[in-house]
């Protein structure tokens, strides 16, 4: 189920095209079925359900939040923006993600115009890894602790600051819940066995 969770998160932060929203609605239904019971995002998903219909206005909201707007974009969706001291893009942290992807023989498709540490790329990469067998476990852990946990909470906090549309407020909630849950899972998994 983790692959679907991350895929869903990734899709939430990608450009809201009709096709993509349809996919998200499908995933959402699947996730609500799948549980787990008492999953922290239970209510978030219920609230998100009516927010996933295609709406032309959301295009502008998406741009305002993540691409370009006057006033500024509050939540730059790039890892290195938050992790590098000069707020640059394509920093060492970006290259690290790129190399992690290369280890699995994948890279961000050129026509997407996305950097490897764009939130969409990172989350989708996690979804990909989660779908692999246990061999990808260490990489997932690294991705989670050294990337997601270090910048995504800052990113979602910045996003909330500017009163985003409900879809993106809920997306921020979902992302936080997912990362917290996943880190906890990871911790519970790893502590007894070590």
């Amino acid at each position, binding site marked *: 189920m983790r692959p679907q969770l991350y895929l869903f998160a990734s899709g939430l932060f990608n450009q809201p095209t009709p096709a993509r929203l349809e996919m998200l609605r499908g995933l959402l239904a699947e996730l609500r079925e799948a549980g787990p019971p008492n999953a922290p995002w239970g209510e978030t998903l219920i609230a998100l359900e009516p927010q996933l219909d295609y709406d032309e206005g959301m*295009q502008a909201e998406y741009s*305002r939040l993540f*691409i*370009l707007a006057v006033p500024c974009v509050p939540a730059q969706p790039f890892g290195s923006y938050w992790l590098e001291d000069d707020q*640059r893009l*394509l920093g060492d942290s970006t290259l690290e993600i790129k190399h992690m992807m290369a280890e699995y023989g994948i890279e961000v498709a050129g026509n997407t*115009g996305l950097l490897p540490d764009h939130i969409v790329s990172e989350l989708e990469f996690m979804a990909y890894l989660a779908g692999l067998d246990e061999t990808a476990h260490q990489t997932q852990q690294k991705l989670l602790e050294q990337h997601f946990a270090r910048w995504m909470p800052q990113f979602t906090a910045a996003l909330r600051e500017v009163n985003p549309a409900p879809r993106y407020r809920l997306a921020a909630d979902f992302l936080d819940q997912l990362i917290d849950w996943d880190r906890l899972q990871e911790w519970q998994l790893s502590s007894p066995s070590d």
Partner: protein
Amino acid sequence: MSTPNQFDPSRRAFLGATMGGTALSIAGLPSQALARINAPHEHEKLKETTEVFGFCDMCYWRCGLKIRSRDGRAVKIDGNPEHPNNWGVVCGKGNAGLMVAYAPNRLKYPMKRVGKRGGGEWKQISWDEALNEVAENLNKVKKEHGSQALALIGHGSWEKPYHRLAHAFGTPNTTSPVFGLCCGPRGLANMMVVGRNLTGNETIDLENCKYFLMMGRNVTESLHNGETLGWVNGVANGAKVVYFDPRYSITASKADEYYALRPLTDHAFLLAMINVVINEELYDKQFVAEQTLGFDELKERVKQYTPEWAAPITDVRADDIRRLAREMAAKAPSVFVYAPRRMTRSSNDLGTGLSITILNTLFGVWGRKGGVFTPQKYNVPEPDLPEFKHAHIAHRVKTGGDFDFSAMDIPSEHIVDEHGKYQRADGAGVMGRWPIANAQYGLTNEMWRAMAEQKPYPIRALITAGGNGFLNSTNYDIIRKALETIDFYVAADVIPNEMNAYADILLPEASYLERYDDLQIGGAREGYVAVRMPAIKPMHDTRDAWTICKQLADRMDLGAYFPHESIKELLDDRLKKAGSSLAEIEKVGILKTARDDKINFPRDHGNPLKIKTPGGKTKAEFVPSMLKNMGYDKALDYVEQVRPKDDEFHMTFGRVGYHTHARTQDNIWTADFMRENVLWIHPEPATKRGIKEGELVTVTDQKGRSGEIKAKVTARIRKDTIFMVHGFGHWDKRMTTAYGQGVADSDLASYEVEPHVGSMSMGLSLVKVEKA
């Protein structure tokens, strides 16, 4: 053997004398430090990189570069030692170019405006949608208003394809700020007198010059690597520097003599210099006799401008003027009267420019070692293209160099010429409007006015390629009105700014590290052609100017003007016609002709200077016939300039070495040295107003425009003048580093128009300063 270390007795005291320690380690001599040499150590490593060639886009001098990359990331910009624009050196801005590519605030995807224009709301669209939309809207404007209803404002090393696209579209209204807002009057003056514009990449033999008379040419802070290095070398070779500027700039600190000239009175000083040179017969008699016209008339005209006349106007003593004239004459022709780069200042910039050129001509500097050299050319033909509708402005005269103000045809005096073609809306090169203004680059300021007022005919669509109409111009109301009035505005740029915030469609350009561009063809001592190659893949969904224009042209049935499939094919085609190829130039970065003193310094080799003035003469014209015919020769005479009342100041602005125009304030590496600009004010007026260093002050001009800025109290400026660095005071919140830092000088500069050229007279502004 290495030299033994010099032991200094004072060292012991410095070290705090561990005398106790020495007892034990007496066997350990020599010093511990030396002992360490032999111990094995690890040290930093230089990581492996790959290298491609390019030329810089951080300012408009365009130095040759070698860009080092590693792991898909450009990591270091070095100079190309073979490039005559910089001989391997790169300034701070050039080094910080990496942060153009990596800026988080860049334009990343094609965007379409939603909501009201200038409201700052867009949505991401695909390139196809964006280009279709642009083509559709432009075609609509063409259908409804005619092709002349499109204006293009370009600013950057990649504006060229946009000019071609606009010309192919059929509009004459293509403009760049370089003429009307910057070097216009100086290029024009040189053209008028000797038939060459001497701007862009100046062709001064700086290394061998022996005497620089610098009229506010702040060559160290408004710096262009090759020019600055040449000048520094010249100074090191013993050239005398006499520098005029109301502000004691860094260039002033390098000068042998400094004059805090009264602002705007350069012309008076120069006329007095001409007067002395003529009266005392200090000029190059052979050159004046053989290759000039109008000397007697000039003599007559400057008779009244004695040093005694100029002294109270300029604050330069009469005997100093005489002495400087004599000193220069003694060193001529290895002397140069250096015009300021941006000469859009006083109410008679043309006159100032003319007197600078006249002085240089009197000293016979043209085609002489240590004076002005004749550049060589590297002949690279343009591709064969169909005829343009406005052919007279669409083709550059091929003298080399990027800023070529030589297009001087004067069309008829109507909006539509005898062939039924529309004249430029900004009136550049149009009789009855601004006939002597350059029709190639036009008057950007007047183009904005034409758009705002929809005169002399409707302009309904605008393309901007780079540039920042607000911060590089001065009349914000006009620009805002223009942007709100037109039907359709498409902006192409790398970074967001105040102007492209109004765009209906935003086209994100790849940065200069991510793309090919058309060839750089220049004329220095050697003629050269240089290539720009991508050092990295585009970071975001961006494209290069040529590709964008080609794809737009295809959509507007103008594909014939972009006959190549790709930019690489274009480069290869052009280079093959010049006897080389893209593959070949990519290996070396630059191709050059051999140096030839005979070409550079014809008069040192007994050959006359080749001259062709716009007036059609083959001799230099002290009183340009073209001006005379139009009654503009009054520009030669001095015009009284504004003077501040007791509580007012001349408003001046200029550059620092690490910022270019309004383009680099959001670059985190250059902003690190100067995040905001400050107001330079002399301690005396500051004390009078109770202003202390670092305190916030309010500057207000006569039109009531004002801003708040921190004060720098310094004796490095005249008491009646204030100064601030140009390009700050950004109010576009998309520029997170530059936003709200300092004051926009352009909002305080004057927007009077120079009466002959039509360029701006930005220095006429008088301001009051008070404690905030």
